């Protein structure tokens, strides 16, 4: 090795370090400002604006947040929604992918294609009509009865057609169900199942185990790490959703924390907006997912690289 290359490496490493430091600054800067502002009293904030040094009112601001806003209840909503999204997505992905990989049926390809179609159009692009469907999920049944002429018969017979109504707006199922209609989880699990050696199935069959025992005793334990990664990613996804929960929930009591935070407008006290309170809200709303990320790092990285198609 010549001295030149050593010198060269040191120079590159210095550049790399500076780049990373800037990157860290870019990511951490807004978070630091959030925390500092959340720790200031409203009065000192009104006097001097954004400040480089933290204040002493963090607890006080969070207390105000808990007593004067709906954020605490909305954090619970977010938790329930994120948990439901993650749990159902994992469960659905697991059984669906299992069925598609470990059985040999001619229609598996069609089912898979139907499910993968969902990846192309995110929920945000179909909110207008999804809203209509969720406001009456029985609508397709009515439509089917009308289209097939059954309803005309019923109307002739009983004097009135069937008109079923089931409104899911402003409820947990209404927020969660449309978020489940995506095939990414199925795709991830299918890719994973296909990496399992075929001998596993053969061995299970020799032991006389049916598909159900194989699914519970063998496939599930093997998929644990991947399911955990999927679960965490979907939980974060559920927690950070915005447009759909914004529309599906209309009362503050049903809104998720992220929606509540965005609506945390100052209530006409006739002063500068209460940014310390709003930033305290941002801290409370983001703290759980941030902790998950900081401590469950390897699952997240695994999950993200798994979404790579």
């Amino acid at each position, binding site marked *: 090795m010549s001295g030149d290359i050593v010198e060269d490496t040191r120079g590159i490493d210095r550049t*790399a370090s500076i780049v990373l430091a800037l990157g860290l600054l870019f990511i951490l800067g807004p978070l630091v400002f959030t925390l500092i502002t959340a720790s200031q009293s409203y009065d000192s*904030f009104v006097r001097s604006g954004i400040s480089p040094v933290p204040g002493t009112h963090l607890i006080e601001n969070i207390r105000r947040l808990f007593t004067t806003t709906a954020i605490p209840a909305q954090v619970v909503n977010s938790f329930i929604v994120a948990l439901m999204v993650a749990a159902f997505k994992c469960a*659905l992905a697991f059984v669906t992918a299992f069925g598609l990989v470990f059985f040999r049926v001619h229609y598996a390809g069609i089912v898979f294609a139907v499910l993968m179609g969902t990846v192309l159009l995110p929920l945000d*692009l179909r909110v*207008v009509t999804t809203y209509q469907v969720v406001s009456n999920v029985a609508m397709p049944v009515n439509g089917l009865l009308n289209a097939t002429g059954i309803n005309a018969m019923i109307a002739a017979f009983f004097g009135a057609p069937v008109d079923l109504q089931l409104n899911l707006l402003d409820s947990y199922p209404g927020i969660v169900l449309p978020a489940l209609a995506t095939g990414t989880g199925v795709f991830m699990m299918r890719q994973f199942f296909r990496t399992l050696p075929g001998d596993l199935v053969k061995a299970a069959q020799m032991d006389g185990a049916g598909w159900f025992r194989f699914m519970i005793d063998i496939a599930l334990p093997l998929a644990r790490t991947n399911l955990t990664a999927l679960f965490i990613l979907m939980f974060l996804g559920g927690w*950070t959703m915005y*447009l759909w929960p914004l529309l599906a929930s209309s009362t503050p009591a049903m809104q998720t924390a992220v929606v509540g935070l965005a609506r945390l407008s100052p209530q006409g006290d006739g002063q500068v907006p209460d940014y310390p309170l709003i930033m305290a809200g941002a801290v409370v709303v*983001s703290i759980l997912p941030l902790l998950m990320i900081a401590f469950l790092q390897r699952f997240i990285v695994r999950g993200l690289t798994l979404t790579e198609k």
Partner: protein
Amino acid sequence: MPPSFAGRWTPFWLSLPMLLIVALFFYIPVYLSFWWSFTLERPFGGGSEFVGFQNYARVLSDPIFWDAAWRTLVFMVFGSTLAIIVPLILALAADRMVPLSHTARNVLIWPKGIAGASIGVVFAFIFNPFVGIMAPLNGLFPGLWNPGSDGTDAFIMLLIAHVWNGIPFNFVILLAGLQAVPRSLTQAAAIDGASPWRRIRDVQLPMIAPQLFLTFVLEFTESVVSAFALIDTMTQGGPGGATRLLVYKIYQDGFKGYDLSGAATQSAILMVFVLCLAAFQFLYLEKKVRYER
């Protein structure tokens, strides 16, 4: 052929819950979007008239639609490019295994846990012309920065927030790609006297071409939709429509303006556009990436 279980309909039953959900909350809404785009719906129901392509004619001749489409495209190109170049540079640096690399690999993923709407609220505050970080500069040069009245400032603010929020995924994917590049390759190039920039250009970038293409493709779709939370919390499409991207316009027309047919028509158009992007991905990029590999 790998061994498999017997049972003609078992997989169907296993997939049924998922199929039902997808039918009800994906295919029916998509179908309805297209159906509504051919009718004139009364907001309160009770009357919808089939109008053929009239909605399309109206939307496509509306300069505001094209304005929003143009801004969507600009955001897509600038937003995606920045949201890939920034993580790429960071990934190249983190790949050097300098002392900061370890911290960076943890911290740079944090934005993944912060909702777009939350970061919108925070950035709207940080970039507030009177109380935010630009306040001192504004004091020196009054009117220098005001995203509330200057469309360009608002668009820049939107881009910065988008890049911030997009770093984790692209960083992880690109870094994973870089780390899979055999060390021997870069070392050989170094010994041949290739400068660091040349090594990046001639060795590393071509080797991570698949990851780069992937991030680009995903980022394109992502930037079309994910901007909504940022727009709604920072600019509401303003000032003067400067940050009104299509996804926000659809929301405004459909939910604030009771124009269900217009919103459905624009949804349908945007869907077709996104589908074309996807088709482009599958047909063209896949081939190219495989070739590169």
